């Protein structure tokens, strides 16, 4: 049976259920407006470890273990683990998952990792290749600064367009059977590069990728923005969100009523000095696993279009003056 539709969308025949989700965040995220929705707020940014890299992996490990526990399963029940992060060679996920001994796919999609994991995970479950799949995405502020920017103790100023990488991890367990919410469709994004070279303005680099996947999603499924109770992008932040709205207006789609962004939700912009808002794989992952799924369980949102966004540059490509390609993936999550 054909499950693909239009240019780049899949519509699941037996929509996988989100069986359980877990979110673990750092202290700054725990001071933000969504603090009550996260399972664990670590007071220690090192998570009891000795380096930022191992701190992120420990966070990934704890979140995965908690998600499986909340699902009432054992780790042996998980057929595939899909996980992505921002560190070199996906090491946050590789080291975080190494102790579990389960089949593993590392994903790199920068901050779009959770969208990628949910889409691929749902394909694995709906395709009959697994009963239970775990999808995870994480980022750590200190590790990301070290990888992409400057040492933490360097006395510099961040430009107003810069985002703040979330220290957090979100993990979900997808299952062939369950009480929902269900992943009913997913649109895989294409790489879009609109010529942005400023690595301190990632919202601007990513907004066109989100626009592209949204328009193709609407066309493929023949629906409009009002079909959804909420359309939540990953980490465009305040500037990227404004750009997305402007581009969507130009394309004839009105998203003003139901658009939100995880990067805008996770921090208090005025009080937490985060400039353009939250970013990082952990931003959309923790907001989805903690806050958005909670709102779906309470039936405050019944039909969600979740669109994590990622900028696909590296330190080397930025230094070489290359433009910043970006990607976004759209995933539909619905209550029955």
């Amino acid at each position, binding site marked *: 049976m054909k499950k693909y539709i239009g240019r780049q969308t899949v519509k699941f025949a037996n929509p996988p259920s989100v069986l359980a989700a877990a979110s673990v965040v750092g202290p700054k995220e725990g001071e933000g407006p969504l603090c009550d929705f996260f399972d664990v707020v670590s007071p220690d940014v090192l998570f009891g470890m000795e380096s930022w890299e191992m701190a992120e992996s420990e966070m990934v490990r704890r979140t995965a273990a908690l998600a499986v526990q909340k699902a009432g399963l054992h780790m042996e029940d998980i057929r595939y683990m899909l996980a992505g992060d921002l560190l070199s060679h996906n090491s946050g996920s590789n080291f975080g998952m190494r102790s579990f001994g389960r089949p593993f796919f590392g994903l790199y999609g920068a901050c779009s990792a959770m969208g990628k994991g949910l889409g691929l995970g749902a394909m694995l479950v709906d395709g009959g290749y697994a009963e239970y799949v775990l999808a995870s995405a994480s980022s750590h502020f200190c590790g990301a600064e070290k990888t992409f920017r400057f040492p933490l103790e360097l006395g*510099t*100023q961040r430009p107003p367009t810069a985002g703040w990488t979330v220290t957090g991890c979100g993990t979900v367990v997808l299952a062939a059977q369950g009480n929902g919410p269900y992943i009913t469709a997913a649109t895989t994004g294409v790489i879009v590069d609109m010529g942005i070279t400023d690595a301190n303005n990632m919202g601007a680099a990513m907004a066109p990728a989100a626009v592209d996947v949204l328009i193709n999603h609407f066309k493929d499924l023949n629906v409009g923005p009002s079909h959804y109770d909420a359309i939540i992008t990953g980490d465009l932040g305040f500037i990227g969100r404004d750009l997305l709205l402007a581009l969507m207006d130009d394309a004839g789609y009105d998203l003003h009523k139901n658009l939100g962004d995880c990067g805008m939700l996770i921090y208090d912009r005025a009080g937490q000095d985060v400039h353009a808002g939250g970013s990082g794989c952990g931003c959309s992952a923790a907001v989805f696993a903690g806050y958005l799924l909670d709102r779906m369980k309470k039936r405050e949102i019944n039909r969600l279009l979740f669109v994590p966004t990622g900028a696909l540059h590296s330190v080397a490509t930025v230094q070489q003056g290359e433009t910043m390609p970006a990607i976004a993936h759209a995933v539909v999550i619905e209550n029955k």
Partner: protein
Amino acid sequence: MNQSEVAKQEYALLVEQASPGSKVAGNCLRAFLVGGGICVVGQIFKNALLALGMANDDASLVTACILVVIAVLLTSVGLYSKIGKFAGAGAIVPITGFANAITAPAIEYKKEGLVLGVGAKMFVIAGPVIVYGAMASVLVGLFHFFMR
């Protein structure tokens, strides 16, 4: 998404309009106050050293050393990054900023070991300043030598 050159130019304009710039006037004022303040502290040390009977050149050298030590200490307890965030160039341009630029990566890369971590990465930010500073001083020296 239309990714033609025209569309990219139009998008660049849209991005420019949507992206707030830095607050230049406030940043300049803070840089002036803090940068000037660091220099005043240095001058106080130098005057004290001169009053103790130290020669002028020696007093300048010892003053620079004292400021570097203070900046290293402030960096290691996490205070210099806060001063830098507040003052911008006011904290980067004085010699204390140079000390911070060497200490910060030394702390950051401690986990990678003394050789490939601290030793190799210590100059990752300050290295270019040393390279081009030394080159500039050679050029100025040659200029001075031939124009004398």
